[in-house]
C-alpha cells in the first residue's frame, strides 16, 4: 500500500506545474552554483599561484636573509567554493615572521566587497534557501489540500491506514525533491571533472555527505509543512504558517541567536585586545630603551663592540620576546575562550532552526566552519617554528637592532654578495582535513537533523490521527 501511495504522490508532483517550475529553477541554480564555484576556484587558484610566485621572485632578488619578507598563502580548496561558509571572510595571506603573532589578511570579501554584500551563489545557498522553500511548496497542502480537493475522502474509503498515507506523502515528496537536486548535481559533478578541478576521493565523499545532509534538511521542512497541513484546515493558511516558519528558520533565528549569544556571553572586541597589546609593547619598548642606554653608557667602542652589542641585544630580545609571547598568549587565549563560549551559545540557540543545523553540518563537512581560521592559524604557527629555526640558521636577528661592521673600499666582482637561494626555505604545506575528521565534527548536527525529521514527522502523524478526513 505504501508503495502505491508513494508512487502516486511522486507522479502527482512530477506531473504538476509546480514541479516543472521547481525543476527548472533548481537545475539552473544548482548548475549555476557549480559553474560559479568552479570559476571562482580557478580564479582563486590563479591568484594563489601568482601570489606565491611574486613572493618567491621578490625574495630571490635579496642578498641577505635579514631582508626577507616571506608570505604564506591559504590554498583554495574545491569544496570551499561549493560550500563557502567562512572561507571568503577569513584572510588568505599571512606575513611570515621569525617570531611574534601572525595574522591573516586579504580575505576574498575584503578584496571584492561587492560579494560581501550579496555573497556568492554557492551550492549551500541553493540547498539552504531555495530547496527549503521548495520543500514547503511541496508539503504545505499535503493533507488539508487533499481534503479541500475532495480526494482525501475517496482515498480513505479504501483500506488505507493513516500511517501509510502520511508516509506516502513524506517519501513521495522527498523523492520528488531529490530529482531536481540529483539530476543537476550529477551534471555539476561532470562539470567539475570536465573543468579539471582536482577533487580527491575524500572530497567526493564529503560532497556526497553534504548532499545527504541537504536531503535531511529539506526532509525536516517537508515534515514541518506536512505537520502544519495536518493541523490547519485551510491550505492557504497552512502556506502562510509554513512561510513564517521558513522565514524564522532561514532568516531570523540564526541572526537572532548571534545577538542573544553576544548578550549572554560578552567578549571584549578585538580593538580592546589590540590596545592592551599595544600598551604592553610600549612598556616593553620603554624598558628596552632604558636598558640599551645603560649598556651604551658603560660600553667600550673597541673591535669587540659589535659582538658584545649583538649578544646583549639578542639576550634582551629573548627575554622581551618571552614576556611578550606569554602575555599575548594569555590575552589571546582568554579572548579565544570567551569567543568560543559565545560561539557555543550562538550555535546552541541557532540549532532551533533546521537551516542553522544544516549550515553548521555542511560547513563542517566542507571545512569552511568557523574553526577554519583557527585551524589555518595553527598551521601557519606550526610553520612559523620551522621558518624561525631556518632563519636562525641563516643568522637572522631575532629582533631589535644589529650592528654590522663592513670594511670600506672597492669591492671586487667576487666579493659581491650572492642572492639568497629561496628554494632553501621550508615549504608551507597545509594539510587538508580528511573525511573522517570532517564527518566526526558534522555528526552531532547530522544527528540533530535526523532527530528533527523524526520528531516533526511524529508530530505530523499524531496531528493527522486527529484529522477529520470528511
Amino acid at each position, binding site marked *: 500500500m505504501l508503495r*502505491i501511495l508513494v508512487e*502516486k504522490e511522486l507522479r502527482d508532483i512530477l506531473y504538476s506545474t509546480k514541479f516543472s517550475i521547481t525543476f527548472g529553477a533548481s537545475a539552473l541554480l544548482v548548475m549555476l552554483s557549480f559553474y560559479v564555484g568552479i570559476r571562482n576556484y580557478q580564479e582563486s587558484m590563479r591568484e594563489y599561484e601568482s601570489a606565491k610566485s611574486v613572493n618567491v621572485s621578490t625574495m630571490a632578488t635579496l642578498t641577505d636573509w635579514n631582508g626577507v619578507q616571506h608570505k604564506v598563502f591559504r590554498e583554495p580548496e574545491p569544496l570551499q567554493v561549493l560550500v563557502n561558509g567562512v572561507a571568503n571572510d577569513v584572510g588568505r595571506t599571512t606575513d611570515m615572521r621569525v617570531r611574534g603573532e601572525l595574522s591573516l589578511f586579504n580575505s576574498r570579501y575584503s578584496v571584492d566587497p561587492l560579494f560581501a554584500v550579496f555573497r556568492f551563489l554557492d551550492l549551500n545557498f541553493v540547498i539552504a534557501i531555495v530547496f527549503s522553500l521548495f520543500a514547503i511548496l511541496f508539503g504545505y497542502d499535503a493533507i488539508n489540500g487533499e481534503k479541500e*480537493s*475532495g480526494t482525501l*475522502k*475517496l482515498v480513505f474509503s479504501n*483500506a488505507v491506514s493513516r500511517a501509510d498515507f502520511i508516509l506516502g506523502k513524506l517519501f513521495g515528496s522527498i523523492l520528488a525533491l531529490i530529482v531536481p537536486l540529483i539530476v543537476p548535481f550529477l551534471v555539476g559533478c561532470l562539470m567539475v571533472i570536465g573543468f579539471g578541478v582536482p577533487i580527491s576521493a575524500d572530497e567526493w565523499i564529503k560532497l556526497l555527505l553534504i548532499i545527504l545532509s541537504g536531503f535531511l534538511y529539506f526532509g525536516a521542512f517537508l515534515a514541518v509543512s506536512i505537520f502544519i497541513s495536518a493541523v490547519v484546515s485551510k491550505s492557504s493558511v497552512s502556506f502562510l504558517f509554513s512561510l513564517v516558519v521558513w522565514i524564522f528558520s532561514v532568516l531570523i533565528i540564526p541572526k537572532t541567536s548571534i545577538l542573544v549569544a553576544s548578550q549572554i556571553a560578552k567578549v571584549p572586541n578585538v580593538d580592546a585586545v589590540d590596545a592592551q597589546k599595544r600598551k604592553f609593547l610600549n612598556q616593553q619598548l620603554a624598558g628596552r630603551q632604558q636598558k640599551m642606554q645603560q649598556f651604551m653608557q658603560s660600553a667600550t667602542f673597541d673591535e669587540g663592540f659589535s659582538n658584545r652589542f649583538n649578544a646583549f641585544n639578542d639576550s634582551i630580545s629573548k627575554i622581551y620576546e618571552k614576556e611578550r609571547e606569554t602575555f599575548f598568549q594569555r590575552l589571546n587565549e582568554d579572548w579565544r575562550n570567551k569567543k568560543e563560549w559565545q560561539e557555543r551559545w550562538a550555535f546552541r540557540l541557532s540549532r532551533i532552526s533546521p537551516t542553522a543545523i544544516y549550515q553548521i553540518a555542511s560547513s563542517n563537512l566542507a571545512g569552511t566552519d568557523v574553526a577554519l581560521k583557527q585551524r589555518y592559524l595553527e598551521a601557519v604557527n606550526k610553520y612559523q617554528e620551522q621558518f624561525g629555526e631556518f632563519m636562525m640558521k641563516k643568522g637572522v636577528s631575532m629582533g631589535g637592532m644589529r650592528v654590522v661592521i663592513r670594511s670600506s673600499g672597492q669591492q671586487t666582482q667576487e666579493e659581491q654578495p650572492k642572492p639568497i637561494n629561496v628554494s632553501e626555505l621550508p615549504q608551507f604545506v597545509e594539510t587538508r582535513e580528511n573525511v573522517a575528521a570532517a564527518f566526526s565534527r558534522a555528526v552531532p548536527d547530522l544527528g540533530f537533523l535526523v532527530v528533527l525529521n523524526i520528531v516533526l514527522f511524529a508530530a505530523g502523524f499524531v496531528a493527522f490521527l486527529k484529522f*477529520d478526513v470528511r
Partner: protein
Amino acid sequence: MEQHATISAEGLTKIYEDGVCALDHVSFAVKPGEIFCLLGGNGAGKTTAINIFLGFIPPSQGVAKIHNVDIHRDPLEAKKYVSYLSDVVMLYPNFTARQNLDFFARLGGKHALTRDDYYTALRRVGLQEKAFEQKLKGFSKGMRQKVGLAIAIIKESPAIILDEPTSGLDPKAANEFQTTLLGLRAQGKAILMSTHDIFRAKEIADTVGIMNEGKMLAIKSRKELEHEDLEQLYLNYIHGKVAA
C-alpha cells in the same frame, strides 16, 4: 438483523461533541442485489450514516457492518469490501482518467489490471473514448462522476455506497448513471444510496428508508411502494402525520 446482508446498521447512533444527535438508533440492512435508498432532506442523518459506514467517524452506539465486518472495530478489513462515490467526485487533476482509475484500483487491491481493463470500465460508465487519456483538469462534473463510478465498479467490491450521486447531473448523465447502477444490482452488488430525489429513489430503489432528524421513520420495499405516492408518503412521515 438479516444474516445475508452485505451492509447492515444495528441501532446506529451518533451524538456529536456539541450534543447534536445526528443518528438515533437507526437499523437497516442491504442484501446482495439490492438498492437501498436513504431518503431524507438536509440534516436527516444520511451522510452521517455513510460517514460511519466508511469509518470516517465512529458511532456513539450501535454497529455498522460491511460484509459482516464491524467497520469501527476493523476499518481496514471492512473497507476492502466497499466502494464509495460521493456527490461531487474530486480526483487528481494532474492524472488522466485512466491514471486516476489505475491508482484507485490499486488502492482497492486490484494490482493486475491492464490498460484494456481500465478502458472497459470507463466505456461501461459511458465516458467518451477521447477523454480516457485526458487530464481530469478540464472534466465536467458529469465526466468526473463517471470516472468516480468507474472507480467504484473496478474495485469489484460486494458493497457500494453512494452519497447523493446524481445531484447536479444533467438528465442524460443521470439516466446513464441509473442504467449503470441497475447493471451493478444485476451483478449482485449491495448498493446503499443516499438521496433527496424522491422520483429517482422510487424508480431504482428496491427498498427506501425514509429519514428525518436522525431517525429512520420508515423502511418500505418496492412492492409496498408500488401503489403509493412516495412524495406524499415522505412528506407525511416527516411532518409526523404517519406514526413512525
